[in-house]
């Protein structure tokens, strides 16, 4: 039983790491600014998933608060970036 769960966790961690690499490639390649913003938003979500998987692997429930914090910061940063790209300033 331990073996199945351990293998599933490792495979899932590897796939999320590959997803982060792909998002980073889009962040570097993206031709326009909104592509980069989209890649950054996806990167926040991938970071939440990675933190949750690490929390399961370690067996500590303290990682949920970290994931919640990352979710909050990601939403606020995406909103600020969208406002900046639309108006040219983020705080009026």
């Amino acid at each position, binding site marked *: 039983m331990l073996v199945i769960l351990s293998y599933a966790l490792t495979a899932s961690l590897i796939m*999320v790491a590959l*997803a982060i690499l792909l998002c980073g490639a889009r962040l570097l390649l993206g031709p326009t600014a909104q592509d980069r913003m*989209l890649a950054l938003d996806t990167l926040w979500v*991938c970071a*939440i998933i990675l933190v949750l998987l690490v929390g399961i692997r370690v067996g500590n429930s303290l990682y949920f608060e970290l994931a919640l914090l990352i979710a909050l910061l990601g939403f606020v940063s995406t909103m600020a970036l969208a406002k900046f*790209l639309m108006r040219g300033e983020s705080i009026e």
Partner: protein
Amino acid sequence: MMQAEQLPLWLGIPVAILLLFGGLFTLIGALGLYRSPDFYQRIHGPAVVVTLGLGCVLIASMGLFSYWQSRLVVHELLITLFAFMSAPVSAMLMMRVAVYRRKK
């Protein structure tokens, strides 16, 4: 991973399947983000990551921690609620930015 030894089979197999599907859907969404040619097609990839990938991992961790701490752990519902509420808002903001910047 030292607590996983006393995990029963009826919980371990669904959790393993959910973890695998979470990772797979995350990879599929990121691949869609990487390979699509246009911004309006690229924005479909992160929707898969937020809903299916994050949802599968959150359900799996909810089941595991509820068993390990022998009580109902619903911390993950906060993350689910927040992510599912904020994802459409941020997607709409990004679409508005894209439309506005193309028009200009």
